[in-house]
């Protein structure tokens, strides 16, 4: 595929991600932070996010699996997830955190499990999307093109 096409696909894809709420303005901020001295900044941060989120989701699964659920701990995990997802711009993941925290406050294990399920789904979705995005970027770079900025 020629560079131009790749770039157009990239822009379209990125735009759709914003439009569908998978990503928000914060992600654009990350893109702006990337520069020559930190050329892989976005990938680096997003990778950190993936690692951290998977760890948190595992912790959440375990915590909610306990006979006596420690809701404070669950809430702490969700809070952390909220912080990191909002920092990378994973909007839909972040949005799942708010009701999740409410369920923790209510100490409703069932509701929490449902929230956890939803957040896992959202996470996997955004992970998928971002990975696709990065692949597109790599293709563009491999084809010699520059990655277009999308707001």
């Amino acid at each position: 595929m020629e560079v131009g096409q790749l770039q157009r696909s990239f822009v379209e894809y990125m735009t759709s991600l914003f439009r569908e709420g998978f990503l928000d303005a914060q992600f654009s901020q990350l893109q702006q932070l990337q520069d020559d001295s930190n050329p892989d900044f976005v990938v680096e941060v997003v990778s950190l996010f993936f690692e951290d989120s998977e760890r948190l989701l595992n912790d959440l699964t375990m915590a909610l699996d306990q006979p006596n659920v420690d809701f404070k701990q669950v809430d702490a995990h969700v809070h952390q997830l909220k912080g990191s997802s909002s920092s990378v711009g994973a909007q839909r993941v972040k949005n799942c955190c708010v009701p999740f925290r409410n369920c923790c406050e209510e100490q409703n294990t069932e509701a929490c499990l449902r929230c956890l399920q939803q957040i896992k789904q959202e996470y996997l979705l955004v992970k998928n999307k971002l990975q696709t995005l990065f692949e597109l970027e790599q293709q563009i770079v491999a084809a010699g093109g520059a990655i277009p900025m999308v707001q």
Partner: protein
Amino acid sequence: MNLGTASSSVSWQSSTNDRVSDMQFPAGLRVLLVDDDPTCLRILEQMLRKCHYEVTKSNRAEIALSMLRENRNGFDIVISDVHMPDMNGFKLLEHVGLEMDLPVIMMSADDSKDVVMKGVTHGACDYLIKPVRIEALKNIWQHVIRKKKHEFPKDKDFEQSTSLEDGDRQQKPQDDVDYSSSANEGNWKSSKKRKEEEDENEDRDDTSTLKKPRVVWSVELHQQFVQAVNQLGIDKSKTLLFLHICPSLGEHSDPVPVLAEGSRYPFELVEIICGGMKWVEMLGIIPEAVPKKILELMNVPGLTRENVASHLQKYRLYLRRLSSVSQHQSGLNNSFMGHPEATYGMSSFNGLELQALAATGQLPAQSLATLQAAALGRSATKSAISMPLVDQRNIFSFENPKLRFPEGQQQQLNNSNKQINLLHGIPTTMEPKQLADLHQSSQSFVAMNMQGNPRMQQNNALLMHMSQQQHPSRAQMLNETNNGQVSRPPLSISQPLSSNGIRGPVYNQVSQASSMVDFSLNQNSELQNNGSPLVRSNSGMSTLTSKRIISSDIKGSRGFPPGYDIFEELHQQKSQDWGLTNVGSTFGASTDHSSIPGTLDVSPSMLVQQGISSIKKNGQNGNSHISKVFSSREESGNVHPMGGGPQLNLIPGGNLLNVKSEQLPDTSYQNTFFPDQFGQDDLMSALLKQQESGGQVETDFGFDGYSPLDNLPV
């Protein structure tokens, strides 16, 4: 101090002004970033780098703290997350603020107001909500400038203005960071102005010109400072030593060497100087420790009042944190009850009561002193009030033992029970049950940590009630003023009272009083309406609302016999501060008043003064003010709130003190001066003195929201 870790930092340290005027400024600002979230940590690091700051990051607060300690001058500002696994962000904030006095910015994904408030009250210079935008970070250098400015001797040419920006900034840190940053990004001067204005908002007198040398609080200087502070409050607060173990100090396990050069508030230093938490507590309560006086005492050339003021503020903040933490841990009650010194609070409480009760001017200072001493010595004296209410008269005479009718019984009581002392002032005509009620109330106050208000109210009610009972005329007065609250419904206090640990039998006897108390017991609204102190419940009501009510009642009860007002206030304060339960008990306590917190020796005038001023000042402020009053009361010795000196007469027939006197203070009370009425030089001087000092008594307890410097006279 200037380790010169980097050229930019050297210039930054040595002369902020130079640094500021440097074209590169604020580039090179050395930021310490702490966040356990690796994603956020990386993002923020990158953002800060984009701002041309030097970033050091850490995902562990402990590591960050040790980095700061190793290199005290290696950083200009700290940015920390609130929720971290190893250390609470607020703890870190306190440590940094005290030890290194660096500006700290808190951040969190949590934007709930209470958390933000917590950050602000803990001394964070800013609070950022995640996700943090780079614009928010671009202006963090302002905090550094601001902090440094406070270090410098202030200049007089600051601008006084109430900038909306400042106001907004103070209230909505995270929002305004963005606004202000975008507004001021290119305008350093306006930022400086804003900072100056903010300084004023923060109770700092002048703005520094950034030209004068930074004041370094060396070990010696800090020691001098602490000595001066102690000295100022020493007479009053010496008894305030509590054995609070500060958990935050406990966290500091590594033996940090005594102040390295440039450090400010090392925990060790606090401990060394203060001999442990005791002093920490005490210092927080010293009302006399105002910057001006501290400065005078210290007598350090080149040191300005502003330097001392800012240092003092930090210190108080620190003490507050510690005391609030230790309060949780040990409980005020325990500290109070468990330690003689702790009876300070109780003393104050009792003292107030005594004062209120005691005929104005009739209570010899000596007896008051004795009472106070007794109160101090008394530790958990709840059971003290066991004096049976045999005979009202006897009780009263019993109560006046020192004053007038030295009797064996009385003497005993006086000697053994501070409470008895308290009763000195109580008109002997007061019925035993009234006294008992009071006693009980005071006891309940004691029992209830910091619950003063409700108790106070009760006590007041009881007192008033008692007075009423004793003196029909007074009762009339009371009735008039109390809008009929004084009428006594059948007392059922006994239960609540006894539940407080106050002697049960007393309660029973004090049927009337108890009914009064009951009546008042949940009659907060009535209280407000009627301003009748009587309407307070005896049983340890510890409702904050009642406190509020009391305040308003006090105000409202201006028309009431002074005694009532005073009682109320005293009680309120007492209970607030010390949760002393013996307020009432001292009164009625007829005999045992051992439980009476020995506040007698607190100069009534002082206490009242304090109370009055605080009430006046604070009107509706609840505990904090009242507690202030109380503490001041403690210190000032017995201030007899009852201004009606002249009115205090021995009722013919002896033991009865004119209840009226108790109620007298109203006018004087209201005027915050009882000079004429009291006819007691010591009271007057105490009052005057208190007024002078602004009657700022700070209590470590329940200090919520109280800004130590707010009341510091400039």
